[in-house]
């Protein structure tokens, strides 16, 4: 888990602290870190944001699911809920709304330093969204041909975005509304501190671990400003088990509750033995 917000002056990313959305050239920074243990199975790479109110009522409702589902009329005439990110310069915004507008757009790259040589680690960007979201909830507009540029004709990009929605990715099945980074972002978080899946690192073969212990560095293209509202940004690497990621809270809670239950059971049993049998019908007063 690496915090790369860059609030501290010593942080390499401190220089990027006050970037804005459209700063060119983008500010980049590099953070070195060491893995103590190697990751044996598949590794998941997350970005985490803090103090970011994705659960604010006005934020949550500021989207148009019809538009995101590929409805052509909504594409050109987005829902009023999207205000003030509904239209820009008299053109409808696609995708509209505050959620889409604030999409996370840092780029993270992971490199391993092995005896001085830098090896780029392959990050897989597909398979990070729910199947239902990717296949049911989000769909690109339909029309003649598959040219997304044509299909999004007449719309404009969200205010904060550097490029239009149909230029999010090169691959057609990960572009437009069905771009998985976009889908993940659109699934709003319940709490102001949250993390979202960014990339997958697959285990290549059975001979070596997915990520060996050793030195790594993270190359960050720092586009996403959070400093103004005291937000924090993190990068997290994690593996998972059958019940999801590491979850100390649940474990501790179960142990605590279990022992309380046991203790309570013993106490109640004692009490019951001591006092329980004094209730005979004899004391029913009449």
């Amino acid at each position: 888990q690496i915090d790369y917000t860059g609030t501290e002056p010593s942080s390499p990313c401190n220089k990027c602290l006050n970037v804005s959305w459209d700063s060119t050239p983008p500010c980049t920074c590099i953070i070195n870190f060491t893995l103590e243990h190697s990751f044996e199975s598949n590794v998941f790479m997350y970005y985490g944001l803090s103090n970011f109110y994705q659960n604010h009522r006005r934020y949550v409702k500021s989207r148009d699911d019809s538009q995101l589902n590929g409805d052509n009329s909504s594409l050109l005439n987005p829902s009023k809920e999207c205000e003030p990110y509904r239209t820009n310069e008299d053109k409808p915004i696609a995708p509209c709304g505050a959620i889409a507008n604030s999409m996370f757009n840092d780029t993270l790259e992971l490199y391993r330093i092995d005896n001085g040589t830098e090896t780029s680690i392959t990050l897989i960007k597909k398979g990070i969204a729910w199947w239902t979201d990717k296949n049911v909830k989000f769909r690109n507009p339909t029309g003649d041909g598959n040219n997304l540029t044509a299909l999004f004709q007449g719309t404009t990009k969200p205010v904060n975005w550097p490029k239009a929605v149909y230029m999010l990715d090169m691959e057609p099945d990960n572009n437009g509304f069905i771009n998985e980074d976009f889908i993940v972002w659109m699934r709003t978080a319940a709490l102001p501190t949250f993390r979202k899946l960014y990339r997958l690192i697959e285990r290549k073969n059975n001979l070596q671990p997915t990520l060996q212990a050793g030195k790594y560095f993270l190359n960050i293209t720092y586009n996403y400003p959070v400093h103004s509202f005291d937000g924090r940004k993190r990068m997290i690497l994690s593996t998972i088990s059958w019940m999801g990621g590491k979850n100390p809270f649940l474990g501790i809670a179960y142990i605590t509750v279990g022992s309380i239950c046991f203790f309570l059971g013993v106490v109640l049993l004692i009490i019951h033995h001591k006092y329980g049998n004094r209730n005979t019908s004899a004391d029913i007063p009449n």
Partner: protein
Amino acid sequence: MTVPREMPEKWPRVRAPGGAEEERRVRANAREYNEKFQYASNCIKTSKYNIVTFLPVNLFEQFQEVANTYFLFLLILQLIPQISSLSWFTTIVPLVLVLTITAVKDATDDYFRHKSDNQVNNRQSQVLIGGVLRQEQWMNVRVGDIIKLENNQFVAADLLLLSSSEPHGLCYIETAELDGETNMKVRQAIPVTSELGDTSKLARFDGPDTKLMQNSGRTKFKRTSIDRLMNTLVLWIFGFLVCMGVILAIGNAIWEHEVGVCFQIYLPWDEGVHSAFFSGFLSFWSYIIILNTVVPISLYVSVEVIRLGHSYFINWDKKMYCAKRRTPAEARTTTLNEELGQVEYIFSDKTGTLTQNIMVFSKCSVNGHSYGDVQDVLGHKAELGERPEPVDFSFNPLADLRFQFWDPSLLEAVKLGDPHVHEFFRLLSLCHTVMSEEKSEGELFYKAQSPDEGALVTAARNFGFVFRSRTPKTITVHELGRAITYQLLAILDFNNIRKRMSVIVRSPEGKIRLYCKGADTILLERLHPINQDLTNVTTDHLNEYAGEGLRTLVLAYKDLEESYYEDWSERLHRAGSAPEAREDRLARLYDEVEHDMMLLGATAIEDKLQQGVPETIAILTLANIKIWVLTGDKQETAVNIGYSCKMLTDDMTEVFVVTGHTVLEVREELRKAREKMMDASRSMGNGFSYQEKLSSSKLTSVLEAIAGEYALVINGHSLAHALEADMEVEFLETACACKAVICCRVTPLQKAQVVELVKKYKKAVTLAIGDGANDVSMIKTAHIGVGISGQEGIQAVLASDYSFSQFKFLQRLLLVHGRWSYLRMCKFLCYFFYKNFAFTMVHFWFGFFCGFSAQTVYDQYFITLYNIVYTSLPVLAMGVFDQDVPEQRSMEYPKLYEPGQLNLLFNKREFFICIAQGIYTSVLMFFIPYGVFADATRDDGAQLADYQSFAVTVATSLVIVVSVQIGLDTGFWTAINHFFIWGSLAAYFAILFAMHSDGLFQMFPNQFRFVGNAQNTLAQPTVWLTIALTTVVCIMPVVAFRFLKLDLKPELSDTVRYTQLVRKKQKTQHRCMRRVGRVGSRRSGYAFSHQEGFGELIMSGKNMRLSSLALSSFTARPSAGWIETLRKKKGSDGSTAGSPSGAADKTLKV
């Protein structure tokens, strides 16, 4: 047999209620003339709506309810986009549901009203139109019409009696539906019209103007104490709601000021919102909307549904169905059920309620020999239950078959010709004011003024001394088959002071003899000294009879010398025509002749109690319910009944009798009574244990800690003083310290005042039970009014909230239905508040994590359906079916009733416990998922902590927790409970998956945003682990607490349940009510509910069909007097009774 609405005697000064109309001008039989005045038609309309007006009128009425208006207001709030935190349908769906249910209920009620109106309006009566009698429907009868009524017809309107087929324009009417009294009332036509022949009447008031309609209106709306408490609590919750709103609004303002301002790069403020303060203001309203579910609209509807269910249980209760009268119990008000479980004071009428108003000749003492004990073959006194055959009266063709007597020796004595016995029955057959009617040969009907007299004459009839007929001057008696006509010389009438009546007759042999019957206290003093020995024996018998609660009369006779009688009769005549002090003179003359009489014996009449009255009273007393008897009867009668139904016992330390006539006397008597009680308790306190003192010091009033049992008997006059403002508290304290209170000679108004007094000073639930019109005021005043139905009078039933036909059902109504209703309602309310707090408060906690933005935790569909689908039916099932102990047990252990009286199951403390539990649950419900989700991921590595998954997790665990909780609360599982609880869970998951399905999303992408959420979230083990953890942590303390309470401080009901579970060998002790004979220290007096003046009526011959010759010989007597006397009587003791609450049908006997 019945005819409504008729009040001829008020004819001269007709006053319409409200006093607007001073007089009515009516020309008989002239419709055109009467049309001019626009009198109301005789069409009765009690219905409220018709098809066209139903919707608007009903909606208008419904929106007058605060709750409905409140929800309408919320709905409007939700339509403002800046505020709307929830979609509009979350409010409108429940609101429409509630409005529809209420509207359907109103519509059905009104439909039945239409039906009954039609039935009444279409009854037929004969109307004289244009000189021809025509059948006319009631609704077409007009003011001024002349109506012909025949025997046993219903009266169509308030009528003026013009004439009747009886002599002197008399007619007998039954006013049962007006005032509940079943005896005939005499009405006389005004003299001018009385010569007209056939009975005909003039319609005076029609339709809405009749007495019936005037009186039937506007029953005061009764509310239960739980209702009031509920309303207070709802207000508090509103206060709480506003507080939460304010806190969150302040939070919102601060947040927007500190964080939101900076966050504007991603989330700019809404248009028009320029400051954090204004945003806070808006968020206040938003939070009011989402937090309003703490007082859901379904609360009131659910309460109504539960009460309706309980009412049906009462209606359907076979054990409260009287087969004899074919009347089931009926809950006429559906809103008071739970209050039946909290009754502390019962005010009961006597006649018709405790007693059947049937007098039975049960024992007698003749010449020192007592007859009437039930005997078996060997001549021993038989035990109850193994009754031998009743005495066979078949030798006597004139015998009344309904009469039963159990002691054959009396009949033998008659047959053997015992002269004393013969004289005894001769007296009974001669000395009375009964009228006989012989419809066909041998078929005798007695019209008795009081049931006592009827019983005595019937007894004589069966023993062979048949009173056959009378004329003003003679009485014909069949003595053992021989017709003998006695000459009736004088009737020395009954009155309250004399407490006796006599007749002077001349036998065919020419002997003049005076027969007298009267109260023992009076009569025994007037006997000839030679009776001394016989008197002693008879007194013993009297004591014995009185001890059994029988009404006793002493019979005596005296032979009069011809010359003495001549002289006396002369003086009597002079006194009778004297201009002044007539009554006094007569009284003195009567007194003179009724002297030195010879004792014949004594009779004992059983005032038949209703079935099971003593048992019921005993059990209700054990249940700590205080029973006060309020009766119009005389003190002796009332006390007598008090003894026979075990309200008063000889074990009682003392029975105080308050009979003072002045304020001072009454005050003095009350003071003395209290002093005595205080003294006794003090002396006992000294000698007694320390504990007693301790407990008594805790009580507010010293008087409530009185040791020993006392009873208070208070008279009408004294009561009038005792109810004055400065003495009422004293009276109440004294009365409440007593075990039993009997108020006699009270007017209906006083009955109501007594109830009012108790209501005012004791915060106790009162129940009044009665059967007649004189109880109406009391029934209406008390918290709960119970009417005895099945008798002919329905006035009390009309005013009552519950009705059934036997007093003994009261026990079941209170101890079983009332107790259960109370228990269920309390459990329901506790659970209801709990579940809504658990549900709603989660939003409050979430507010701290979502920038106080009024974001809801749950899906909006869940919010809509939570109260009306997911959790409504299980709690309704519990509220309707739950029971802690089975019905037999609650009868067996009347003490189980006490929690209700003390208001233990639902009060402010219980309420706060429920609320606390709800809040505790909501805290866990939010923070456990919060803790888990903070950095959990799914098993495919994706994020878990998205808002929608969080919502589904919290909602699911909430539904499971409240379902488990209702499972814990349910004490009595029926199939319906199971069905509803499992069904609700199933419905939750079914609806959840349906709402999150692809299909709905495809149709309305913006409405069903949670697509695919259910299967994605609920497939995660982490989510289920979280749900399980939440459930355990929420439920565990509750289980532990209940377990501890069961072990350490069990309630009585727990213990009862436990013993039932264990089923000890020890069988139910049969607590059979043994009839304990009371060793009499007191006895009854002249127990006639007799009206003075009837003797005069007989002697005047006015009520007999006589030849005009016979009549003319009697015109010399003060003939007009009797009606005057009757009226005077009515006026004096009936002045309040006579302001008749009365309303329905009277019977007309022509």
